């Protein structure tokens, strides 16, 4: 225990621990950091910028050398990150960016916008024509906003696709299930549902299954293992895989590099593109990672 405590600490802060994507993200970062001889701690801010603020304070107070952070809001996180920097703690943002540069040591961002576009393109290809519905994440979350923006850049230019319902399911599978059931009732000719993340997509798929309707295209976002399973079985058409593991490892490596040399040797913003996962290539991925 003693020499464990003597190791330098890297605090890892992710949005939540009960979502497979963030779970994988956090675990990957922790694993790498421990490989590199760091002490780690994973906390979740549940997309509550104030809780994130407190967690960063706690990290500062417990003398963390670096913070790996998947932030709680591109605007509402800035002051916290700035405070950490002021305390001389290196901050490495993963997955989501913040609206300023020069504060964080690195922003290794999963390109939600590009990811949204590619999955939307696949959705448009698959749906061809007709009515579709959108399930948004928690509308007060930045990512929900970016993704829906990306979806619409594509889908609004596809004249044969008509948006008939857009509801928030707050990232929740149960809520997506119920709302989809209701939407299906309202729209007999629904051809597709584009969801803001995989859990909602799975909820929608379950609802479609229990409704007995066939041929409704469902796409998700994240690339979770559960989604992969659903893609294999055809319940999901596609998802946009954010390379969580890659990003986390990168962030930790750069943190390590920075702590040892005083620089990351990389540009601050590194935007990692998302991969489109469909039945065709689903077997090339495992746990948010490209394996072949």
């Amino acid at each position, binding site marked *: 225990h003693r020499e464990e405590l003597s190791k330098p600490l890297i605090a890892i802060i992710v949005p*939540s*621990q*009960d*979502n*497979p994507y963030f*779970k994988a993200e956090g675990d990957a970062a922790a694993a790498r950091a421990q490989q590199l001889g760091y002490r780690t701690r994973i906390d979740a801010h549940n997309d509550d910028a104030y809780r994130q603020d407190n967690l960063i304070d706690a990290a500062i107070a417990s003398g963390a050398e670096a913070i790996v952070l998947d932030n709680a809001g591109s605007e509402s996180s800035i002051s916290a990150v700035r405070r950490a920097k002021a305390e001389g703690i290196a901050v490495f943002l993963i997955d989501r960016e913040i609206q300023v540069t020069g504060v964080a040591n690195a922003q290794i961002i999963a390109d939600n916008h590009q990811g949204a576009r590619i999955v939307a393109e696949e959705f448009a290809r698959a749906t061809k024509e007709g009515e579709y519905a959108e399930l948004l994440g928690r*509308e007060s979350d930045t990512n929900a906003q970016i993704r829906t923006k990306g979806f619409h850049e594509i889908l609004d230019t596809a004249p044969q696709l008509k948006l008939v*319902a*857009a*509801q*928030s399911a*707050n990232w*929740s*599978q*149960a809520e997506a*299930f*119920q*709302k989809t*059931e*209701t*939407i*299906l*009732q*309202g*729209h*007999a000719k629904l051809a597709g549902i584009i969801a803001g993340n995989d*859990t909602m997509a*799975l*909820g929608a798929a*379950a609802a479609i299954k*229990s409704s007995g309707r066939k041929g409704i295209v469902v796409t998700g976002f994240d690339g979770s*293992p*559960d989604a992969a*399973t659903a893609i294999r079985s055809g319940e999901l058409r596609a998802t946009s895989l954010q390379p969580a593991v890659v990003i986390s490892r990168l962030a930790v490596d750069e943190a390590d590099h920075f702590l040892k040399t005083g620089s990351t040797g990389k540009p601050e913003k590194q935007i990692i593109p998302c991969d489109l996962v469909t039945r065709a290539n689903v077997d090339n991925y495992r746990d948010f990672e490209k394996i072949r």
Partner: protein
Amino acid sequence: MTSISATLSSSDRLASSGARIALILLRARAVLVLVLLLILFSALAPSFLTAANLSILTKHVAISAILAIGMTFVILSGGIDLSVGSVAGLGGMVAGYILTQGLTLGGTTYHPGVFVAIFATIALCLVVGALNGWLVSRAGVAPFIATLGTLYIARGAALLMSNGKTFPNLAAHAPSFAFIGQSFLLRVPIPVWLMFALFAVAAFIAAKTPFGRHVYAIGGNERAARLAGIVVPRVKMYTFLFSAFCAGLVGLIIASQLEAAHPATGESFELNAIAAVVLGGTSLMGGRGSVTGSLIGAFVIGVLADGLVMLGVSEFWQIVIKGVVIVLAVAIDQLQSRLQAKFLPLLLRSTPGAGA
């Protein structure tokens, strides 16, 4: 003596009819709101009033209705149960765990059938219920705090079971598990059957069994109930057990519907359940209310939610409207009972007894 009985008989007649009117109005209030909503949505959303949609709607209502039915006894006896949402979440996780991981006893892992899983789930939920009951009726902790504590404990436990992960495709592990949430009987979803079954049982218990009456008695006047020889702690214990049982059932239904168990399931369900009970005309002070009311209240909340989704009303407005409906419905209830208090005496103005 004569004059007294005279007063009584005449005042009785009025009082009774007054009481009946009151009762009808009271029921009517929830029903009224419900009917209004139904008309509104049918008018605005063509596909709302279809058999298919109503069946789905009822299935959604079932969730909060079952919780509300369980909550009714707790509230009737003057308590409250904030833990039902967490308990539902925990229940789903227990089932998910057993179905996917099996039970490991002394090194060897068994893969018990669906019924064992269901049984174990309910059992664990009852343990939480018993904890609530014990804290309230024995340790003398205020129900609000006791169940707030178990809310956290149960939620944390649910998250710990899978270390935050979801137990995925339960269907693959146990196809028959889909039954609870997904199957139909005579073209009516099983959850709806469960809801009506529970409703029937609960309404029967409330109206026809000594237990039911004891619940009302305790809510009405706990001291009197105790002096009349009612074993108050035991009754309270049962109310919390029943509430936890219903919560467990909900957890199973949701897990079965999603074919997956997610540890965060059920967050803030308790608020819906409480709102349903109160909309149904049950007083948070206890002693006054009915299971039927709670069912109607649950329908109000469910119809509102689904209807607004159908109309494509934005999430944000949905929240506001929900708040407004809750407050309005209850405020109207109060107003009405006030009016009654005002207007009954005026009826009694010309009773012979006074003149005698």
